[in-house]
């Protein structure tokens, strides 16, 4: 029981959200920006952030009567300016063939100008706005579904909710529209919420509706974990910039990814819901506390803090299961030289190479200069061929092992430039807290990007994540 209460401290409840975050951090003036979609669109656009393009705006009944319907494109979304919960949104996909006054909706049914007019009148009269205050209707471009999300989304467009606090993106979830939510990315209405690892933008755990934990899209074998969100860095950046320009201290930014335009901000939320904690199976309060009070000077720094603090769950899980370390395609390694001298360099992880290869200059710095010099006198045999490889290695090594210090072997390398021989020395290195004693061949890599590549022979204790 006590344990239960202790654990609950990491969770953010309504009371704490309202009293400690929304009340002091989201002032009325700034909340207005979140509630007024047109104003929000303008402000974000001015800040250089992508938003769905505005097509036209209808403010009064007069404007509605004089509206030129031929200016509308084949597909658009009609929205109430102060709508909430996705109510009152009408999306059409194309004009009906040969009928300039009729459009086709997502479910295949048609809608004529007269019906659209009625819908707009409802919007103008405030049927979809809070407290029914008169509203403005606007047309904006319809976003197109990204291929990555196609199998996962039912009809509508999925979006990504990012909670930003103190310029740090603290938690995120991907919201997938379902049949139950009738194509809306709204959890209250039965959409799917999928937690996201902040570091990598890869999905983790998922819930359906208000709290049913699921692993697959219902009725399919499509796993919800491991979806890689495209433009992840960009999504994080946009949400942090959105916080900066909106002045909302505790912000929920909703970002959709358009097939052509990439990420665009759909809307800002001054009262983000708490279900995101269920989707991530993680407490928000705990994360907010860890970030609060930090002095975040730049957008980039905020993103990095968020990624470092609230990511890596997937990696940890993999490392625990496999007992191997997960590394990226470029890693920092600490090479330990002859007299204990340590040099840290960036290494290319090359699963296509058999063995590890190190630059001549670096080898010298590590104290293997005499080996490099000594090897210069070695004359490569004329006729190197794969059949004779082991024989050459053996004879050359026997011949020179006493005269050249530190020589641990000879390596024969066949490449498009022909065959060559290289000296091999043993150098221990530390990568991702793991020490490996590597047999490195020495070659001139001065014209290449990395002074060392690490090949398969030395990667047995690692897993390579190429996206890292």
């Amino acid at each position: 029981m006590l344990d239960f209460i202790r654990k609950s401290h990491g969770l953010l409840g309504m009371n704490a959200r309202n009293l400690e975050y929304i009340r002091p951090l989201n002032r009325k003036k700034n909340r207005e920006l979140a509630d007024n979609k047109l104003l929000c669109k303008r402000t974000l656009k001015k800040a250089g952030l992508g938003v769905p393009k505005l097509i036209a705006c209808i403010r009064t009944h007069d404007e509605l009567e004089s509206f030129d319907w031929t200016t509308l494109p084949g597909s658009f979304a009609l929205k109430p300016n102060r709508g909430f919960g996705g109510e009152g949104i009408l999306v059409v996909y194309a004009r009906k063939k040969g009928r300039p006054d009729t459009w086709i909706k997502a479910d295949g049914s048609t809608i004529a100008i007269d019906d659209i007019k009625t819908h707009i009148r409802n919007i103008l009269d405030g049927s979809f706005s809070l407290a029914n205050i008169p509203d403005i209707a606007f047309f904006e471009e319809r976003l197109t579904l990204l291929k990555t999300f196609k199998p996962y989304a039912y009809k509508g467009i999925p979006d990504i909710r990012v909670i930003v606090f103190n310029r740090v993106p603290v938690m995120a979830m991907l919201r997938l529209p379902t049949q139950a939510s009738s194509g809306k990315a709204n959890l209250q209405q039965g959409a799917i919420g999928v937690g996201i690892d902040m570091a990598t933008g890869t999905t983790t755990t998922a819930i359906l509706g208000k709290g049913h934990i699921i692993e697959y899209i219902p009725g399919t074998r499509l796993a919800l974990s491991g979806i890689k969100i495209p433009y992840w860095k960009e999504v994080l950046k946009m949400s942090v910039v959105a916080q900066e320009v909106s002045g909302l201290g505790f912000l929920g930014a909703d970002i959709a990814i358009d097939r052509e335009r990439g990420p665009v901000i759909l809307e800002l939320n001054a009262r983000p819901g708490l279900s995101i904690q269920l989707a991530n199976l993680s407490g928000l309060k705990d994360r907010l506390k860890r970030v609060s009070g930090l002095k975040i000077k730049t957008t980039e720094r905020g993103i990095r803090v968020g990624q470092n603090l609230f990511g890596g769950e997937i990696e940890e899980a993999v490392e625990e299961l496999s007992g191997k370390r997960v590394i990226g395609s470029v890693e920092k390694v600490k090479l330990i030289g002859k007299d204990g001298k340590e040099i840290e360099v960036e290494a290319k992880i090359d699963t296509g190479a058999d063995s590890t290869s190190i630059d001549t200059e670096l080898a010298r710095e590590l104290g293997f200069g005499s080996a490099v010099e000594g090897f210069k006198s070695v004359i490569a045999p004329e006729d190197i061929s794969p059949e004779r490889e082991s024989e050459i290695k053996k004879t050359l090594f026997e011949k020179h092992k006493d005269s050249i210090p530190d020589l641990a072997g000879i390596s024969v390398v066949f490449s498009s430039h022909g065959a060559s021989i290289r000296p091999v020395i043993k150098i221990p290195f530390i990568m991702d807290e793991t020490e490996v004693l590597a047999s490195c061949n020495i070659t001139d890599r001065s014209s290449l990007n990395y002074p060392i590549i690490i090949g398969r022979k030395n990667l047995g204790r690692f897993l390579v994540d190429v996206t890292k």
Partner: protein
Amino acid sequence: MLYHPFINFMVEQGVPLQTIALLLMLPVVATMVAFFRQVIGIKAFGIYTPSIITFALIAFDPNGLKYGIAIFISVILVGMISRYILKRFRILYLPRVAMTLSIVSLSILSILVFGGIQHRTGLASVDIFPLLIMITIAEKFVATQIEKGNRMAFILAVETLGISLVGYFLIRWDGLILFVLRFPWVVLLTFVINFSLGKWTGLRIAEYIRFRKIFKYIQ
């Protein structure tokens, strides 16, 4: 001495005891609604609706519970049905609510007449003001339907009724009324309670249930 001298003084000035008792109970009921929201997590339709329904139930007495609940449920049911009927016509909000209210009040009228035919004179002769209060709940209900959907509106209606019933029993509890009339200053305690409720940032009981699945995953 049965009552506090101050109460006696007010009675002497011609304020009915019933009025004094109910006005003193209002802070108690309101505090109870706040407690339900902040600590337990039962939302209901704000604070006005459950409080006023509580007093409407009292006003229906002696058969408050039976008729009050029956009328409340009728209002909600008719409200739901009207929405289905009116939805297809796509009419603007206020005319739609006006029509909903009309349908509800006509239905209640027919229920009263039906009660009369069945010789349930208690039903036919209920007070008009609590009845009107019940009927106007339909607006709150319709507004919630539009904002939060049918399901949520229905849940909130049930929660409202639940809280109102607790409030009803609280006011019907003679011991509490006598206590308040004898020590009227205890009503001031509700300020202290509400102040702490207003600063309370812990999880609500409903949230413990909602987030129970996360606990397994938190170290």
